């Protein structure tokens, strides 16, 4: 994994001033905020963290291609919006009553995917989920591919120098469950 420090050194070697990079602290703030929005069921605000072309993937196998290997979640932005509409409906019985969640985000590392104003953030995710008197633990490794976007409107979040004065948005979120090869219980809350 290429670290931000290495990337800075590499960019600096060319003589030009290196662009500011997404550091770990800022990446953590982003992930913590995302986690809080989900735990507080502020789904519409959470959806605002995504790019228009965003993809949300929970693989069902060892690979990453949901056309080759059945996935647990394989959502584009429009399907994510549908998912939130579903979570808001009292007739979505698998979430009625809804799950309560507390999620712990840890082991955050920032890696560069290569070209372009984007950054890959790796993390570990542990969710305690409580519903109907039972509490479960869901554990996963996460990849967030963050993409810098221009500030679209007021109040959309803190602008970041590392995002070129714009905002970081989620272009891809991949959640790889530790037990992806086991039969899953109800995962209709958002991971």
């Amino acid at each position, binding site marked *: 994994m290429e670290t931000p420090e290495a990337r800075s050194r590499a960019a600096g070697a060319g003589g030009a001033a290196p662009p500011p990079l997404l550091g770990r602290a800022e990446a953590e703030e982003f992930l913590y905020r995302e986690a809080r929005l989900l735990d507080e069921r502020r789904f519409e605000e959470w959806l605002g963290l995504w790019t228009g072309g965003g993809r949300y993937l929970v693989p069902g196998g060892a690979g990453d291609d949901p056309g080759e290997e059945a996935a647990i979640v394989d959502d584009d932005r429009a399907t994510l919006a549908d998912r939130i509409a579903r979570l808001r409906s009292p007739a979505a019985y698998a979430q009625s009553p809804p799950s309560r969640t507390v999620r712990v985000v840890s082991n955050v590392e920032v890696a560069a995917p290569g070209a372009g104003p984007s950054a890959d953030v790796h993390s570990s995710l542990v969710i305690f989920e409580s519903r109907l008197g039972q509490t479960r633990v869901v554990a996963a490794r996460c990849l967030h591919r963050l993409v810098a976007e221009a500030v679209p409107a007021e109040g959309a979040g803190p602008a970041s120098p590392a995002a070129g004065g714009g905002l970081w948005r989620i272009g891809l979120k991949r959640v790889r469950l530790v037990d992806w090869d086991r*039969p899953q*219980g*109800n995962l209709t809350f958002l991971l």
Partner: protein
Amino acid sequence: MARPADGDPGPASEVLVREDRVHRRLYTDAGVFALELERIFERTWVFVGHESEVPQPGDYRTTAIGRQPVILSRHTDGSVHVLFNRCMHRGAVVCRAERGNSTVFRCMYHGWMYDPSGELVGVPFPGGYGDGFDPAEWGLRRVPRVESRRGFVFASLAPEGEGLAEHLGPAARYLDLIVDAAPAGEVVVRAGVERYAYAANWKLQAENLLDGYHPNFTHQVAFEIAERRRGRSGRRANSEGSGATARAFGRGHGALHYGAARRYAPDPGDPAAAAHRRALEERLGPERAEEVLGTDIQLFVFPNLFFQNARQHFRVLRPVAVDRTEVEAYPYALSGAPDEVNRRQVRGLAWWASSAAFGQPDDLEAFERCQAGLQVTAADWVLFARGLHRERQAAGEVVGDVTDEVPQRGMYREWKRLMADGDA
């Protein structure tokens, strides 16, 4: 029916199952569950796996028949075997991995080795067993009867009984219809699996797969979302009088046949769908191609296999405990169809059938609510009377309205027959 194993002097099967209802103990009694494993899963034909899951010599996958671990393997000569996964020396499973390739199963405990047909091919320090030891007697035990249809491998632990074709009856014709959608005439199982589990009895899922009464209610939200996305709605096929039918075939098998109420009709401008149709017309002729592509069917092969051709997958039920069930949903590829057709179907399965999907999890919620409600002792019966007065016989099938409980009644007739077989 023998008394339940927990020593409770339970009622006999003819008391537990009537024509239009079944007793709640079918879902809640651990003794009944133990007897189901013995008399249903470890006796009748059950689905084990698909031949395309073990395409190469040495390929294997492990699974279970009832409680008993088995290996589906392909031998070096190309033959397919179903072996009990139990070392003949001291009893350890000889294969732990879910799938893989090996020309030898070597027990980790004392190193006994078996080939993919089960033959014992190696015993460390064999002199210790003396001259009378004949390795030919100590191969892995084979499941007594194994037969396949269109690559779907079934096995029966009963040494004798009716053959698979006789057992499947009309269900075989529908299985053929499903597989015939592949221009090359076969399906390939290679696109992973959706695995889910729920805390309720296995029969709640079995009943539900051919329940055309519940979708408008359980899945109302999913339908509304799908209709909004498609920009159209209308009369749903799972409505009384839609013309769709619920059917029972005998031996517990059945189907929902949507007929003209819901037909597969891809966008005429879709090049992948058009190429699929052309390839199929070439092989089957236009009439059969239209029948195969247009027919929307859900097929249940009692006790553990279900197909939904419109979503191009099959599911396998695995009873774990009286109140726990695991289900695997396998997408299948239509061999010879454009990649795009197959890839779309794999991706579509996440939307409906995964543990995070828009559809199926609401069914699981219903099963768990049933399991909780069925603890009530003030009401004994679960009712399957719907449409009993209007079902009809047609060509060896019992046929009713799509919302009628025809397949469930058929399933419990077979349940009763199998469970009573063995009573003194």
